[in-house]
């Protein structure tokens, strides 16, 4: 099975995020980027499928700061090929635009399955997977926690709230939004990543022009976060009274 894994860089949430002066985007000057954690799960799922049934894996990413390192890490983990889509990609790329550019690039790449992370931290205008699937005219399943290849289809599990899981047969080619692979994403030792950088090259593809999401960002703000708990003083009755009051205020008393 030939699998394409879409890999995306998102701002690292470990760092403090600052809003740009115009209030419409993050201040991108000092942002650190990391690979979207669900994309890591998607790659792991792809590697497991390849280990079991053979085939190839191509990691595809839109250009972003430090994306090369991430693509080489994909190769070090077992991807066969890594493609970087380059072009005018400054600032936040909307999910719609990203999906357009990916769809344009992927049309030319033969594939059976496209795996994406189910979502990312900056999917303001929706998740890339279903957008991409629609542009490509392929079926899509989100929140997938299990994939099994079976001839020209896959059997997938989709997770719902409360632990209920749906099982589906999906004809290929298809796009899946991976929530979790059956095992934690594997580790790529640094020395192997470095060796991969010497041995392999990234394939670059020019990005197609793409429309945005059709949304105006009016402003971005940071939510108020209390830095320290508000301490509740008093005897047991007072404390209990106050806690119940707080919970009731937030509609938490009905369970």
């Amino acid at each position, binding site marked *: 099975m030939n699998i394409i894994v879409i890999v995306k860089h998102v701002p690292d949430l470990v760092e403090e995020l600052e809003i740009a002066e115009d209030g419409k985007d993050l201040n991108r000057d000092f942002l650190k980027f990391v690979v979207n954690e669900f994309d890591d799960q998607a790659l792991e799922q792809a590697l497991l499928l390849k280990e079991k049934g053979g085939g190839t894996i191509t990691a595809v990413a839109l250009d972003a700061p430090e994306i090369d390192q991430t693509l080489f890490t994909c190769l070090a983990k077992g991807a066969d090929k890594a493609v970087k889509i380059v072009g005018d990609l400054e600032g936040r790329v909307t999910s719609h635009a990203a999906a357009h550019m990916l769809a344009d690039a992927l049309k030319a790449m033969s594939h059976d399955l496209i795996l994406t992370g189910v979502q990312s931290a900056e999917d303001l205008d929706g998740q890339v997977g279903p957008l991409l699937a629609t542009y490509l005219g392929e079926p899509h399943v989100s929140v997938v926690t299990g994939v099994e290849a079976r001839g020209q289809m896959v059997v997938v599990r989709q997770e719902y709230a409360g632990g209920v899981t749906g099982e589906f047969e999906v004809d290929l080619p298809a796009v899946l939004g991976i929530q979790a692979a059956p095992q*934690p994403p*594997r580790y790529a*030792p640094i*020395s*192997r990543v470095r060796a991969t950088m010497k041995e392999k090259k990234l394939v670059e593809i020019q990005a197609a022009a793409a429309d945005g999401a059709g949304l105006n960002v009016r402003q971005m703000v940071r939510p108020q976060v209390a830095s320290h708990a508000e301490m509740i003083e008093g005897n047991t009755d007072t404390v209990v009274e106050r806690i119940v009051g707080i919970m009731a205020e937030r509609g938490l008393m009905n369970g």
Partner: protein
Amino acid sequence: MPVKGVKQAPIVVEKDSVTVRGIELKGQWNRMFEPRVIDDYDLTHLDRVAALSGGESIEFCYQCGKCVPVCPVDVVGNYGPRKIVRKLQLGVDLTEDADLWLCTTCMNCLRVCPKEVDMIKIMPAVREQAILDGKFVPPELQKTFENIARYGNPQGESPRKRADWAKEAGVPVPIMASVKRPVDVLLYVGSYPSYHPRGKDAARAMARVLTALGVDFAILGHEEKEDGDSVRLAGEKGLYETLADSTIKTLAKYRFNRIVVFGPHEYNAFKNVYPKFAAENGLAWDYAILHYTQFLAERLDQLTPLLKKPIEITTTFHDPCYLGRHNGEYDAPRRLLAAIPGVTLVEMGRSRENGYCCGGGGGGMWLDSFAGGHQKMRLSERRVQEAVEYGASLLSVCCPYEVSRFEDGVKSTGNDGKLIVRDIIEMIDEAMRAE
């Protein structure tokens, strides 16, 4: 009489299930409990370990068993270097065995080994191979590697916040990049004093003590990264090399007379490991390295008059493996403790050269859950019990791994209220706070 005729070999049957203490064990699990017949000495894996650079001495073992009683892990589980060698001889693949991740590289086995079977080299080499082969790496360790690779610290905290602890030190803590002049002491803080809540307490105490002594010091601030020695010992050599390269190049930008380190692991890295790496890579590395206890012990004349507030307590001292056994420094911390008025030092049975291990070395710091699943209790818990048994009310330490490990151990062993844990620098800081 000689054997006559040809006997048939008995057929060894693995039982479908066996009942051990009322629990039924199916299939292969009963092998764990039944004295299963050894039907092969498959040396493939032993040969593979011996072929690794650093793994050669695995074959030196002649099964004398001296290592087992001093192995801190064997005290809390069925483990020990001799047993690992035997398992290898029996065909166990160490790269897939839980034992691989239990060694804390404390070096007590090597200290007593007549054949110099060097687990401090063997274990990291095999771990590296396991990681390169894509074998199971405990997820918590994997996460730590990723954190260190990405953020330069095991906690996965923002590198920009590395010096945030200093804001509440109560004294100015200069940062090398800002002072723009040579300083006497470069204080290498380390990740735990930089980020861990209890580590930060110690870091702040350190800043106050150095200031009180009038030491001209500065820290690297956000330019500082994990030293990588424990990363190396945990098997991620490539990451260690990246960190060493980065730290060596960062330090090369500045002028200072000596490096004072908080942690024994940094001490070991800078003193014993970095010089070799620098030489192999054409980098300069020629610094005076001091553990903070050594630096302060050299200044006892100056320090002692400042220690005015007595701390009336019976303490015992836990020798860090990487300050003691690995680097031979046993006295500096004890001299500092002796200088604090009111403090009575009692020695535990396992101390100095035979000091027990807190379980944090060699990557153990990042394998707590995994190791916990293969041991009766944590090494830190065993040590806490020993401290209490010897009548100490305070367990003093001087390795940033240890305060949190032992404080957890105090709670989990039900010794809350019986034993407190303090870094020596915290005790000095407190003793300086005269009325």
